[in-house]
């Protein structure tokens, strides 16, 4: 019964009950379903089971749809992908006649010279290839990604798969059963299908089995993990074992004319006749050498097809209907065109015969779908049903081995002659098995080709190629659905910053304020009055336990044994090669524990470093990452103490809390660990507080500072403030192989310590002259904003001798300053004659600002 029409390249085509897109098109007279990739040969329906590439069309703007397994719907828009101006009349078919121009491996041989012509050739090739156009401007569809943990994953829901699933479930296993297609859709109506549906009902009634039909298993990965996907869902299955019941396809054989429209595999032909009531031709020749082939022959005849001849082994003669001539033990030589099958040549008792026909039906063996097991050797995979068959060996006697990639037997011969002498390297060179069928059709033919020749050479490696995911076609959009890269860390003051109009940006995985307005005003507030900065992003660690002093003594090169309770110290962290990996501030407490702050971006590495060395040194240390638990606000500027004192009853003067000291104080009723730091070069208090109290503390500090003109400041202002002090950022101003000496940080290394991480390397490196150093620079006659110089090379004469890592124009100093690594000559920095861009650069001592540190000690 007709259920409306679909639109095919502008014309209406009736859709009948049970139609696939392919059956509807074929009934309406379409014979050329696609054009081949390179030679643009006509391709017609062939496998009928969703394996081969021949029937792929564009459906509703989605290219690459296999029409033979896609149910037809009224209103669908269907087009053929390749073909210029059309698939029916494709002028690019001329490439089939120019085969010498496109030999096997042509992309390495032709279109190479002249080189200037390559861009034009590339454009041409790009336009000529592909299989349809992706729709533009389409919204990504929603794909649900989920994980499933089961005892058994059964792939394939045919009779073998359904049995395996039931057996597992009855053994109290949790089972996931998947199949690329709806259950039973590959089976012709009849007793076999009825039995399958009865079996299916049993499976669906079993609560321990989750059935995912229409979900293809794409690949087996370590674990094992199996990716199983449908159009709207990607399931990552984590099974304890895998049962492959993926069945077998009918064997694809290579002989002259094997790719002509009108050459059918038996399943496609009998389904078209029995299920869709479509006659595949007026005169059929059937070649059947399997029981299944004989069944297809019976099905076709029963459906009224005119089978004129059947090429069968002697044992099958009785099964050939009287209306057809039985050609016993005949050999199919070739199919002849042009354009479609018009006759076949059969050798019978040494004589070749030409049999006129318009359809050739082949059923000569089975090729198990075993790619998932060939993908994952060593994983717990069991093959059942037809998938476990050894499979037949296809004949390769001409024609096309690989339909997807247009690789002919001649191409394979040529590749073999060029020295590509195993299935694996033939695959790489010819691209056979790498197309949309993923080797399901051609893999065995390629292996058979190699195996037949490998005894002629001792280099040959017979056997199948390793299969690669995806084993079935899948949209990139489906695979990409599981990828969500952005992880945003936030401090408790996130909303406060947004309310203040802050411009937030990424810094070490956090969203942080870069500026709240004009960074120059923020800078001025810190230098002249007071500023507040959210530094809750710093890594913060409690290091406790009886061996805590031993750990910090060994992990950091800095002397820390003399760090008295209540004092803090700048520390470096080196790796075992002696290179600077991070830095931080270590605060000692009276109970033998420490609070360590690390850089924002380095917190996770610091955590890993401390844990690793605790373990390696066998120390009794308790490490608690407090980064998430503590907020921190830096109050900095000459009026910082004036701002804090009204909010606290604790002593905050230089006697009680001098520079590089820390103490427990209460500010605005909130308990804080106050660390006197000087990163910005002014009197500064870093108030580490319970995260939940952050907004409250920030508001109290802002209110208290109103009278002094306090400002919140962000990373832009900090960049200038710290640069004036010559403080470096590990990562921005350092290179991966920077030692403390190269950075001028020898003061943070105590070589008299017996041992610390990186000490042996530093001792070895000490004997080698420094190849470069990080140095302070001042710039003259450069750009008005020296920040533009960041990243520019530093020249001495005409030679590049370094690179500017940080640069800024300092309003306080009235000049442009920066940091740069500069190559040394015999251990010395060049005295003058340096340039960075248009600016003259001079090496200058750091800090540039307040070199004696009087302000930060205030």
């Amino acid at each position: 019964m007709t259920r409306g029409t679909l639109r095919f390249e502008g014309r209406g085509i009736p859709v009948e009950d049970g139609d696939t897109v392919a059956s509807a098109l074929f009934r309406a007279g379409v014979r050329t379903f696609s054009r081949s990739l390179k030679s643009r040969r006509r391709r017609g329906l062939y496998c009928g089971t969703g394996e081969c590439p021949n029937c792929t069309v564009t459906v509703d703007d989605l290219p690459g749809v296999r029409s033979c397994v896609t149910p037809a719907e009224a209103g669908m828009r269907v087009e053929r992908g390749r073909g210029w101006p059309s698939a029916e009349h494709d002028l690019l078919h001329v490439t089939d006649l120019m085969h010498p121009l496109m030999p096997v491996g042509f992309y390495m041989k032709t279109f190479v010279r002249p080189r200037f012509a390559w861009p034009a050739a590339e454009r041409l090739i790009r336009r000529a290839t592909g299989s349809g156009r992706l729709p533009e401007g389409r919204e990504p569809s929603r794909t649900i990604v989920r994980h499933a943990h089961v005892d058994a994953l059964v792939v394939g829901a045919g009779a073998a798969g359904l049995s395996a699933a039931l057996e597992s479930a009855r053994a109290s296993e949790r089972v996931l059963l998947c199949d690329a297609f709806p259950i039973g859709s590959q089976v012709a109506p009849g007793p076999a299908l009825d039995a399958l549906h009865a079996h299916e009902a049993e499976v669906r009634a079993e609560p321990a089995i989750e059935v995912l039909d229409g979900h293809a298993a794409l690949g087996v990965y370590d674990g094992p993990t199996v990716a199983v996907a449908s159009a709207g869902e990607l399931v990552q299955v984590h099974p304890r074992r895998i049962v492959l019941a993926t069945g077998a396809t009918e064997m694809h054989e290579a002989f002259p004319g094997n790719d002509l429209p009108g050459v059918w595999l038996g399943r496609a032909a009998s389904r078209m006749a029995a299920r869709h009531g479509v006659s595949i031709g007026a005169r059929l020749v059937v070649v059947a050498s399997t029981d299944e082939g004989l069944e297809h022959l019976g099905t076709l005849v029963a459906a009224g097809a005119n089978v004129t001849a059947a090429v069968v082994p002697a044992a099958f003669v009785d099964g050939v209907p009287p209306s057809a001539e039985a050609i016993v033990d005949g050999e199919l030589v070739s199919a002849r065109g042009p354009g479609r099958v018009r006759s076949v040549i059969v050798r019978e008792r040494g004589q070749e015969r030409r049999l006129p026909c318009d359809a050739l039906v082949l059923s000569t063996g089975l090729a198990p779908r075993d790619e998932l097991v060939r993908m994952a050797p060593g994983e717990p995979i069991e093959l059942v049903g037809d998938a476990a068959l050894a499979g037949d060996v296809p004949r390769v006697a001409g024609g096309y081995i690989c339909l997807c990639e247009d690789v002919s037997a001649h191409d394979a011969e040529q590749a073999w002659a060029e020295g590509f002498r195993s299935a694996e390297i033939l695959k790489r060179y010819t691209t056979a098995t790498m197309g949309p069928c993923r080797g399901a059709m051609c893999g065995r033919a390629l292996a058979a080709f190699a195996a037949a020749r490998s005894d002629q050479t001792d280099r040959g490696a017979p056997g199948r190629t390793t299969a690669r995911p995806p084993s079935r076609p899948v949209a990139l959009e489906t695979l990409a659905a599981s990828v969500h890269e952005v992880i945003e860390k936030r401090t408790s003051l996130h909303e406060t910053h947004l309310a203040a109009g802050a411009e937030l940006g990424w810094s070490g995985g956090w969203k942080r304020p870069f500026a709240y307005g004009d960074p120059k005003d923020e800078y001025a507030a810190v230098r002249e009055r007071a500023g507040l900065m959210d530094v809750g992003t710093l890594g913060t660690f409690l290091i406790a336990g009886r061996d805590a002093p031993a750990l910090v003594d060994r992990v950091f090169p800095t002397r820390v044994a003399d760090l008295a309770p209540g004092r803090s110290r700048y520390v470096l962290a080196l790796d075992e090669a002696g290179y600077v990996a991070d830095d931080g501030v270590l605060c000692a407490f009276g109970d033998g524990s420490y609070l360590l702050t690390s850089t924002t971006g380095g917190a996770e590495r610091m955590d890993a470093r401390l844990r690793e060395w605790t373990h390696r040194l066998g120390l009794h240390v308790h490490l608690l990452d407090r980064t998430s638990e503590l907020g921190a606000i830096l109050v900095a500027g000459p009026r910082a103490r004036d701002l804090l004192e009204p909010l606290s009853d604790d002593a905050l003067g230089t006697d009680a809390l001098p520079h590089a000291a820390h103490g427990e104080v209460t500010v605005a009723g909130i308990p804080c660990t106050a660390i006197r730091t000087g990163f910005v070069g002014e009197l500064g208090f870093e108030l580490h507080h319970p995260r939940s109290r952050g907004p409250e503390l920030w508001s109290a500090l802002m209110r208290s500072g109103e009278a002094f003109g306090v400002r919140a400041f962000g990373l832009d202002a900090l960049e200038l403030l710290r640069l004036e002090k010559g403080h470096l950022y590990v990562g921005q101003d350092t290179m991966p192989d920077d030692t403390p000496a190269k950075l001028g940080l020898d003061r943070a290394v105590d070589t008299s310590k017996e041992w610390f991480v990186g000490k042996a390397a530093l001792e070895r490196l000490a004997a080698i002259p420094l190849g470069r150093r990080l140095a302070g620079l001042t710039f003259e006659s450069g750009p008005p904003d020296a920040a533009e110089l960041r990243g520019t090379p530093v020249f001495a004469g005409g030679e590049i001798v370094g690179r500017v890592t940080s640069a800024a124009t300092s309003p306080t100093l009235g000049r442009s300053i920066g940091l740069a690594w500069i190559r040394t000559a015999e251990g010395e920095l060049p005295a003058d004659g340096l340039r960075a861009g248009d600016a003259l650069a001079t090496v200058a001592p750091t800090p540039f600002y307040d070199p004696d540190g009087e302000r930060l000690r205030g």
Partner: protein
Amino acid sequence: MAELSTTRPGVTAVLGSAEACELVSALPGACPVSPVEVAIVGDASITALRQAVQRVDPDAVVRDVSDGWVLHTLRGPGAREAFARLSELELPASGSVQGAVARVGVRVLVEGDRVDLLVPSMLATHVLERIEDECRELLA
């Protein structure tokens, strides 16, 4: 369907020797983080815990770390299904696991149809947004 709620429960960190941690790892709300660290979700007497573990490891650390954590709770028949969209961790019938949820380190407590995700405060919004996006059809 699953209900999603966010709370800030008490969280206590116990850091000590393996023997000391074993003492507390079976307490209600206990989430073993490593052989030498246990997080305990819910009201706990820090003094009592400290006394107990310090008998075994005298310098064991017991601290209130509530500010560092936020609890996102999925509750209802769809809770486990929702969780499966966020993580490849296999949930036990009851107990705790830890690992990547929405690509960040999360401690998970599970009991029947209730899945508690103990998330570092700094990542609470990230995880919440991922839950709301990935599980939108499942949330009541």
